[in-house]
């Protein structure tokens, strides 16, 4: 056991099966506070599944998750591995923000209502306070003027920024981005990346799954290449992109994307 007080999240031996297919194969990962980890890799390599395993949207068969040094997510009853109580899981999830590829905004609520929903419902925050926080985070993502719009009236980039604001309103300790720009028109990618970058500069801890190599190089402290449920290669962007040229599989993947 490492004695690094800076570790926020530790994954140990995470293994996940879909039927007989091994989606995650004995994954080990430490994420330090403030670290930006970017995971790249071909589709079906298990990147999204790994992110979803972190906040327990995906139940894994083996392995341990430590968040702030405490094991989370699973309990054992009569030798059987069960998900932790809904209350504990909800609490963990409220500390981890997640941004989805397809935004998943709540269409029946305005941008502001989307943002205050979780603080009010989950944290039981008084509405006035939640609105204040929501206005701050909406300003941070540059959408103060859209706070009363419903998602149907927003562009893809604006929707994703509202989704980021919605996650931020919970004041999470870790942010998970699951291909945040994959569903966007190319000209809208920039505004979302800038928002994520600004967040990174504030010191937010992040795990980002993306196909955008330029963005990975720019923002990452560490880049991980994943394939068939295992980490094939990892390192700082400089190490990663230089070693990538030696690794045929990675260079092939990168050239297929660029």
């Amino acid at each position, binding site marked *: 056991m490492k004695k690094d007080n800076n570790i926020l999240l530790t994954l140990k031996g995470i293994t996940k099966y879909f039927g007989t297919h091994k989606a995650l194969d004995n994954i080990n990962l430490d994420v330090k506070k403030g670290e930006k980890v970017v995971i790249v890799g071909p589709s079906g390599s298990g990147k999204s599944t790994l992110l979803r395993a972190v*906040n327990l*949207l995906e139940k894994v068969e083996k392995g341990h998750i430590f968040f702030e040094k405490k094991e989370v997510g699973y309990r054992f009853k009569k030798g059987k591995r069960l998900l932790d109580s*809904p*209350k504990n899981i*909800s*609490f963990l*999830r*409220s*500390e*981890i*923000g*997640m941004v*989805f590829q*397809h935004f*998943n*905004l*709540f*269409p*029946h*609520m305005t941008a502001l209502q989307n943002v205050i*929903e*979780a603080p009010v*419902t*989950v*944290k039981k925050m008084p509405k006035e306070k939640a609105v204040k926080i929501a206005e701050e985070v909406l300003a941070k993502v540059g959408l103060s003027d859209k706070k009363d719009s*419903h998602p*149907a*009236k927003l562009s893809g980039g604006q929707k994703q920024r509202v*989704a980021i604001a*919605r*996650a931020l309103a*919970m004041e999470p300790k870790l942010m998970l981005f699951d291909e945040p720009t994959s569903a966007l028109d190319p000209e809208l990618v920039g505004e979302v990346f800038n928002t994520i970058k600004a967040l990174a500069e504030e010191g937010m801890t992040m795990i980002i799954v993306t196909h955008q190599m330029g963005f990975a190089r720019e923002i990452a402290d560490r880049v991980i290449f994943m394939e068939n449920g295992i980490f094939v290669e990892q390192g700082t962007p400089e190490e990663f992109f230089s070693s990538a040229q030696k690794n045929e599989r990675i260079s092939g993947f990168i050239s297929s994307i660029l």
Partner: protein
Amino acid sequence: MKSVKIFLFSVIFLSIGSICFSNTSDLLLKAENHIASGNFDTAIEILNTIQFPEGKNEEDTINYVKAKIRIAQIASITKDFSSAQAACRKALNADPQNSEAKELLNSIKRQQSPKYVLFFTDSIRFFPSLLKGAFMTLLLVIVTMGVSPIGGLFIALGRISRFAPVSIICWFIIWFFRGTPLLLQLFFIYYGLPALGITLSPLCAALIGLGVNYSAYLAEIIRAGILSIESGQMEAAKALGMTYSQAMKRIIIPQTYKRLIPPVGNEFIALIKDTALVSTISMVELMRSADRLFNTYFNVNVLILAAVMYLLFTTVFTFIFENLEKRVGIYEKR
């Protein structure tokens, strides 16, 4: 000559006798006999011989009135409405309080007036009693509309539940109440339950029957509505830390409203008409009121009026649901 004298004498005697001895009661009796054997013309001739008594002979006045009424009845059967009316009027002149003559005059007038006037007057006549029934129908509809979506929601949530016993029970409820006729369920609740020691008033039985039956139908619609919401919505809610029930209540179910209104509205239109079935368990609602009046008066206008009232209900509710759909779905407008 003698024989001629005898003949003349007997003629005078007989005619005097007929004047003196055949009183009005006998004439009425005679006429009745002709009526009974179908000789209406002869009967009318005899009845017409009964004159209004000059003196204040009470019995003769009564018989005169009876004769006029009889004439009017025969005339109205043979569609001679003007003579029938005239006879009625004469009877009423002699005895203004005679209710039989009054009714007859009214019914003759009815038969003479055009169809639309008849429908109008009938509507006014039957409207109050039908309205009472219509209020009961409305009560049944509104209570069922209030109760069944709630029942349906719980059955639907139970059906989706991963806890097998709940899911199975809810499946069974839907299977049973959708799989048997509503009429049978009503009979069972009203006539069958007393055998188990549970006696319910007709209203109570009707509300339970309609409520449970419609809950079962709506449950499947609501379940489909819930399942139609993209799974990303539940995931996003969970990722924010919401529990399953919070996510259902705040995120999933509110999004189903717009999708549910058309099919649920459809069910409620069917409900308005299905309330007619509770007339079989002695609930007096619109159908039953109409049925009663129809059986008393054999008047088709009662049924037409009832149909108009049902149409009025369905039309009003159709408009309400259309409006609701527009309002609830406003957030999807670009």
